[in-house]
């Protein structure tokens, strides 16, 4: 045996955490000598060596988790029993040979929770195909040889799927969670901003308008707990500002926008943006938003259905400002218009509350100036 794989140490335990190695790489070990102490969900267990041999590699340090069936350590000078694919694939079946009983693949465990026959599993391993969460075409969703070959071909043609990391992974999780929990309704409306000076700071106007909306309709500046069916009305307006980066979506929080001077808010916003781009923003600055602003209009897009991330209950999106033909006092004129999209969680707020919030936002944005 080249690799000693973590056996199922209980009854269907999927993993174990390494507590302590009793040996080091390079050690000569004897059969039944204790190699390592691991902790499973049920017990702290000492694992003995299945054979005599020299250990050349330990997989994992104390504190790390090893899944059942993954290698724990490697013995020197043994033949690799994982096999490589050359020519025709052998469809492993139970031909009764003694080496079918290979140490470490205990006949239960996590692997068995995926529905495929040992032959198919062995093929998936040889072709290095990820089978997690794949629904097979066989009976009861079992993965078949054809499925594995198709997955392998996909990998070959398009390259392997790259697992998400960091912020992007967090975004995927948050969005899925939001999608699963929130009952979203999106209202869209245009604001006529013809009266604005050309130098007007659009983001600051939007921030000011959100504050005005919250003051008019405090329900949307709240946190909602869907499990307890409880809400917290928040006094302070802490605005999450969506910032797009190559690494993914950041939403730093601009504190207390209802009570700060506009210059102060602008400086704060600049600082947050810089910190995000330099990746120096502390995690605390990304937490505690009571409502969110997404100004995707700086890039492209008119209306959207922005996603509310719990526990907050509303998000305002602003699209690209455009010149548009509008009727004003029975005349056809061309004015600059800003499209708005407000999504709110209908569990936490009524349609009327959301519409009144949006009304206040529009009225504030329609003002010629706010300074």
């Amino acid at each position, binding site marked *: 045996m080249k690799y000693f794989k973590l056996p199922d*140490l209980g009854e269907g335990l999927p993993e174990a955490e390494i507590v302590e190695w009793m040996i080091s790489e390079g050690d000569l070990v004897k059969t039944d000598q204790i190699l390592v102490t691991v902790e499973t969900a049920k017990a702290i267990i000492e*694992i003995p060596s299945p054979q005599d041999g020299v250990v050349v590699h330990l997989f994992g340090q104390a504190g790390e988790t090893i899944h059942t069936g993954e290698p724990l350590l490697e013995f020197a000078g043994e033949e690799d029993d994982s096999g490589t694919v050359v020519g025709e694939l052998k469809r492993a079946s139970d031909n009764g040979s003694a080496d079918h009983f290979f140490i470490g693949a205990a006949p239960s465990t996590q692997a068995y929770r995926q529905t495929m026959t040992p032959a198919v599993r062995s093929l998936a391993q040889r072709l290095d195909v990820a089978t997690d969460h794949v629904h097979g075409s066989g009976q009861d969703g079992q993965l078949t*040889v054809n499925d594995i070959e198709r997955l392998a071909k996909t990998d070959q043609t398009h390259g392997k799927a790259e697992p998400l990391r960091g912020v992007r992974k967090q975004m995927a999780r948050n969005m899925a969670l939001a999608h699963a929990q929130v009952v979203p309704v999106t209202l869209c409306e245009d604001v006529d901003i013809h009266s604005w000076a050309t130098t007007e700071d659009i983001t600051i106007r939007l921030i000011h308008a959100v504050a005005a909306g919250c003051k008019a309709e405090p329900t949307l500046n709240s946190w909602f707990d869907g499990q307890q069916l409880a809400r917290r009305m928040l006094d302070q307006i802490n605005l999450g500002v969506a910032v797009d980066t190559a690494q993914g979506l950041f939403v730093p929080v601009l504190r207390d926008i209802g009570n700060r001077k506009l210059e102060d808010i602008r400086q704060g916003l600049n600082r947050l943006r810089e910190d995000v781009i330099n990746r120096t923003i502390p995690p605390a600055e990304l937490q505690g938003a009571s409502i969110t602003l997404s100004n995707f209009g700086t890039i492209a897009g008119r209306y959207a259905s922005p996603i509310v991330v719990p526990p907050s209950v509303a998000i305002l999106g602003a699209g690209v400002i455009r010149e548009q033909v509008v009727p004003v006092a029975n005349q056809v004129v061309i004015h600059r218009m800003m499209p708005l999209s407000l999504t709110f969680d209908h569990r936490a707020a009524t349609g009327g509350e959301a519409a009144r919030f949006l009304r206040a936002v529009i009225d504030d944005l329609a003002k010629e100036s706010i300074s």
Partner: protein
Amino acid sequence: METIYQAQINFSRFLSASGQAEQPLPSWTEQPDTLVSYYRNMVLARQLDNKIIALQRTGQMGTYASLLGAEAIEVVLGERMQPNDVLVPYYRNHALQMLRGLSMEDLLSYWGGDERGNAAAAMGEDFPNAVPIATQALHATGVATAMKIRGEKRAVVTVCGDGATSKGDFMEALNVAGAWQLPVVFMVNNNQWAISVPRSLQCGAPTLAQKAIGAGIRGEQVDGNDVIALHESVSNALQHAREGKGATLIEAISYRLSDHTTADDATRYRNNEELKAAWEREPIKRLQTFLHQKGWWDEVQESAWQNEVAQLIQQGIERYLQQENPPVEHLIDFLYAELPAALQEQRARLIRNAQPGGSHHE
């Protein structure tokens, strides 16, 4: 008011924890053969037990229930039962089953997940392992009833733990054994722990043996780490049963020196001091001391036997590991004498799907 019934429970021990005779010993102990045989078998039982746990830890064995601390009970039952008696075991009777004729590779096969190990021809009329708790006690009374109806001079032995005595099955079995005067020996291996439930929480009665009184059968307590006391108690109970004098409940006081099974970690609920104290009373060292004093066993014999046992075990394991994997239909084949129609269908599908690419053919 008058007393209409009085009962007492006797406790017997001949060898103290340090291997000294506490009272005059029975005459059979004047010859070394039986005691040396007990000793040798206990050593084998313990070494095999250790090795099976190592096999489980390295993925070569399924979940396993250790017999550590019950060696004396195992070997005395195994050597005192007659071949035509019937054993209705529970899941800790590995050495007892082997003394009844089960091969080591069959024993290992069963715990490795192969039903053939539980249906070995060498088991004769003995029952397969009962993993459910206390159900075997009722099976034993069924077998004993058959013997009684046929007028046979045979005995049935069934073993359970202290936890099992709290179950209805156990109480029902005692009751029917008393009502019908059945030839059964109920051996309770009171090892003080039912998984994580200590004996003190298991039952309000000071002894488990006294449950026999309510059923109208003989009940007694014996030191389960003392082969001599066990020998006396088991021999008497078997003789009573074979002579048609009815059933006996033997409560053997032992200690589970192991975890409940390999899927358990007793350090999470058991005081280490208690465990250390129990090691002072364990059965093998106790008998070894006695045999040394008698001059019936020495270090040369010890070392030779340890080596021989290691070889026996290694050979047994090799035979076990070389066995072909069981066919998939064994999942079903050992459940019924005649397979119900619904299971026949499932069986056919199992076999079909086990073929290469099997599920394609549906």
